[in-house]
Every structure is written in structure tokens, then in C-alpha cells.
């Protein structure tokens, strides 16, 4: 349905912790592996061993440098996949109905059998979350691992997206952001989870937890007592040592 459902029963999505992501690309490759073998056509690669390799990935890890007003520059690793927007422009532009947002959980999907590969949805997405597969000519995007999260052939603990399961640092969280009491919603509330490009009105479901403040060097005045010398001279130090040893 290129029109969006008025409401969805759940808002499943990811919460990505920028304070924890080390930029290892594990989620990128795990996603590639799962989605090559599962939902829809494989994620193909062109000129795979050649001079200009390229390929379809549903999740990519950027990195940014931030220069704060004072203090050293910071580096932030930044994974990005479909944000499963509530007001998903990629869905409404689709001429065939291939792109749709699921009524039950809000997952935005492409029905590959109906996709003509016009590319308009990728143009409409501000986040670069859609990539046209060059071999199959159909649009690919994060499926939120819809074929994992309900999959009864998987043990229950494994019914999470592939990228979440694999993330070594635990920077990726999955859950229902429509439910205020869910763990992900609580995380978002506690850590000030943010939207990307809120001004575009897409209302992303996925949220990003901002990095915690960095390089806040504690006031030395508070710490100074910890380094108060116990003696001025070598001899004095031995004296202190003697006394200190008595106490233990």
C-alpha cells in the first residue's frame, strides 16, 4: 500500500547507541550474510574481485569527526539502516505498491515481486536506506529481519535482527518503540534518544542514543587531595612508609 497505515499495532525498530558503537562493521556483514541467503533476492556484488567493486548492503557504518568548541576532536561511528519511518516518504512515492509499511509492526518492506525498480523510493528516502540491487533490478532495504524476528524455526532468543544478535559491543537494541514500557523506549527516554533529520517530518522509528559527553576532565581541585605528597624528602617518605606499614 503506497498509502501508509494510519496506525500500526507496534513500532518495531532499532535503537543504536553511538556511545558504544566501535565501528567494527560486524552488523554490516552479518546483515549482508543473512539477507543474501534469506528475504528476497540475494544482495549481489558487481565487479566483486575487480577494479571497481560495488554491491548491495542494507546497513552501512559511517564515521564522523566532531570538533567541539573546546577540547579535542571526537570520532563517532555511525551505523545506518532503514529507520522504518512512521511517515515514510519512500512508501507513498512507490507507484506499484511494492513498498509498504506493515500494519502490524510498522516494518517498511519492499515486495520484490511488485517492484519495477524505478528507484523513486530511494530518492524519497533522506537516509540512504535503500539500495537498488544491480543484478535483480529490485529495491533492497533493511527488512528489520522480518524473517527472523517471528521465525519459529529459530530459538526464541534468536528472534532478533541479525545485526543486533551479532553486534559485539551491544550497541544495537531491538524492540517496540510504540510501547513506552519496552526496554528500548526506556533506553531512549533515559539517554535522550534522537531522530535523524527530524525537520523532514519522516518520524523515524529507529532512534540514536547520543554519545555521552567526552573529555570532561574532572576538576583537579577535587582530585588534588589524592595526590597530596606524604613527605617532602626521601627520608620523610621512609618515615611515612614505616608508619603506614604499621597500620596494615
Amino acid at each position, binding site marked *: 500500500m*503506497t498509502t501508509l497505515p494510519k496506525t500500526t499495532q507496534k513500532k518495531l525498530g532499532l535503537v543504536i547507541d553511538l556511545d558504544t558503537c566501535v565501528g567494527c562493521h560486524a552488523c554490516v556483514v552479518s546483515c549482508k550474510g543473512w539477507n543474501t541467503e534469506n528475504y528476497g533476492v540475494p544482495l549481489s556484488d558487481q565487479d566483486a574481485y575487480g577494479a571497481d567493486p560495488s554491491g548491495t548492503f542494507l546497513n552501512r557504518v559511517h564515521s564522523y569527526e566532531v570538533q567541539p568548541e573546546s577540547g579535542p576532536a571526537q*570520532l*563517532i561511528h555511525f551505523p545506518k539502516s532503514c529507520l522504518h519511518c512512521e511517515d515514510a516518504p519512500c512508501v507513498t*512515492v512507490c507507484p506499484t505498491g511494492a513498498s509498504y509499511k506493515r500494519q502490524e509492526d510498522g516494518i517498511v518492506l519492499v515486495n520484490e515481486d511488485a*517492484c*519495477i*525498480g524505478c*528507484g523513486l523510493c530511494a530518492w524519497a528516502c533522506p537516509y540512504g536506506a535503500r539500495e537498488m540491487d544491480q543484478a535483480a533490478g529490485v529495491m533492497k532495504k533493511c527488512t528489520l529481519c522480518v524473517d527472523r524476528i517471528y521465525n519459529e524455526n529459530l530459538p526464541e532468543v534468536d528472534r532478533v535482527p541479525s545485526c543486533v544478535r551479532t553486534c559485539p559491543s551491544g550497541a544495537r537494541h531491538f524492540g517496540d518503540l510504540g510501547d513506552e514500557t519496552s526496554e528500548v523506549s526506556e533506553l531512549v527516554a533515559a539517554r535522550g534518544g534522537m531522530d535523524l533529520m527530524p525537520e523532514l517530518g519522516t518520524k523515524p522509528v529507529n532512534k540514536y542514543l547520543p554519545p555521552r559527553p567526552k573529555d570532561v576532565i574532572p576538576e583537579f581541585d577535587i582530585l588534588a587531595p589524592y595526590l597530596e605528597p606524604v613527605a617532602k624528602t626521601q627520608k620523610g617518605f621512609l618515615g611515612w612508609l614505616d608508619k603506614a606499614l604499621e597500620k596494615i
Partner: protein
Amino acid sequence: MHPAGSVIVFTVASGLGFGLLTWLGIGLPEVRGWVAFWHYALGFSLAGGGLLASTFHLGNPQRFLMAFSQWRSSWLSREGCLAVAALAVLGLFAIGKIFLEANWQVLGYLGAILAVLTVFATSMIYAQLKTVPRWNHWSTPALFLLLSLSGGGLLAAQILPSMILLALAGALQLAAWLSGDGRFESRGTDIGTATGLGVRGIVRAFEPPHTGNNYLLKEMVHKVGRKHAVKLRLISFALMILMPLGLLMISGTALMVIFAVLLHAIGTFAQRWLFFAEAEHVVGLYYGKR
């Protein structure tokens, strides 16, 4: 945005074609029989050829029928439906004119409206995209329509109205370029809002997520050199607006009109190339590019 040949051909040709068909639909010029045949043939082949060209852009064109289904929400679907409707209605109208000596003018008007709407729908495919601030503006449909009608008008040899429309298009084009140039900035979307990190300081893209190429970079992160763009703008403006206007001011002979149309068409190709090439998609921000 990547200036794909097929899409440029599509928008330019179908714009001219539907423009011509609009004029024909309202009976300007009033043509019949073989003359009508050639006029309509030109109109239909431009419009239809353009549409056909657009399918070269598709990954799975064989499924094109499905694209008629989402007219409630999708401008691309609407465009398809409108185009078919316009072509069908005007086709009937043309059959009447060419073969049956009939003038079902109601169909003509209806067809003209549909043709205009088709061009409007085409333009809205671009204008609706908030992700491409340069396009996301009323001037996009306005310009598409003016160019379609003026170009079509030239083809229909409606010299005076075409000249007026062309002048208007020229003025609008200048305005669109001017206002378009600053629109990305003025929308307030930048690498800071894209990453949400702007509140912490000045954000700069460090390493890209992949050293290899990908669809996004090829399709949406296309950069034309500034110098290049200015030159092309001059050329396209001269070809598309100034020279046709100048020629027509000198004389209105058929040869002159044909010449003017050709220059205009070439100019419009250049203009359309720029329309894509200069358009910057917000996704480029993630790559530190625009």
C-alpha cells in the same frame, strides 16, 4: 542526482509531446486529415517515446502494469495513469480529426487537461521530494508546465503565445536557479541534523562506510563542478530561451520556427541535464558530499 539519459529524454520528450498535444487538444492549430496526422504523430511519438524511454530506467520494466495501481498516493503512478488517459482521450480525438472528419471537441479539451496534468504529475515526481530541496518547490511544476506548453506551442506553431510562455519560462528559470541555489542551506538540513551530532560541534565526515562504490553514490551523489554549471546554464538558457525568442522575433517563417524548436529542444536537454546534475540529495550529507 545522477543525470540519467533515459530520464532526461523522457522528461524533455514527453514534456514537448504533451505540450503539443495540449495545444492540439484545444484546437490550436485547427488541423485535419493528413496535416492532423503528422501533428498528432509528432505529439504521440514524443509523448509516447518519452514514456518508453523512462522504462529504460527501470530494473524490471516487464512489471510496468503494476505502476498504474497506486494513483492514490504516488505521483509516478498518477503520471502513468494520466499519461495513458491523456493519450487515450487524445487518441480518440485524433482519430476523429484524422479519419472521421469529426471534431469531438469535448474530448479535445478533456485530453488537453489530461496532458497538462500529466506534465504536472511528472514534475511532481521531482517536486514532491523533500530530500532534494532544489526540486522541492512550486517553481518545479511551474517550469515544467511552462516549458511543456511553450515548446509544444512552438511545435504547434503558436508563435505569439509560445513567445510569451517562453519569456515567462525564461524568467521563471532564472528565478528558479537563483532561489534553487540557496535552498539546500535554507532548509536547515545539514550534516549536523543528518547525524544528530550538530549540537556537539562542527561535524565532518571522516571515513566513508565503504571504499567501494554503491548505488547511492552513483545515483544520488553526483557533483558538477561549479564552473561547469555556470557555463552550462548560460548555454542552456541561450539555446532554450534566448535564441528561439530572438529567431522568432526576426521572423515567423516555418523554417525559422523549426530552427527555433530545435534550438529550444537542445537547450531543454541541457537544462534538464542540469536539473538533475545540480540537484543535491540530502543523503550526500552522510557521505560528507552534496
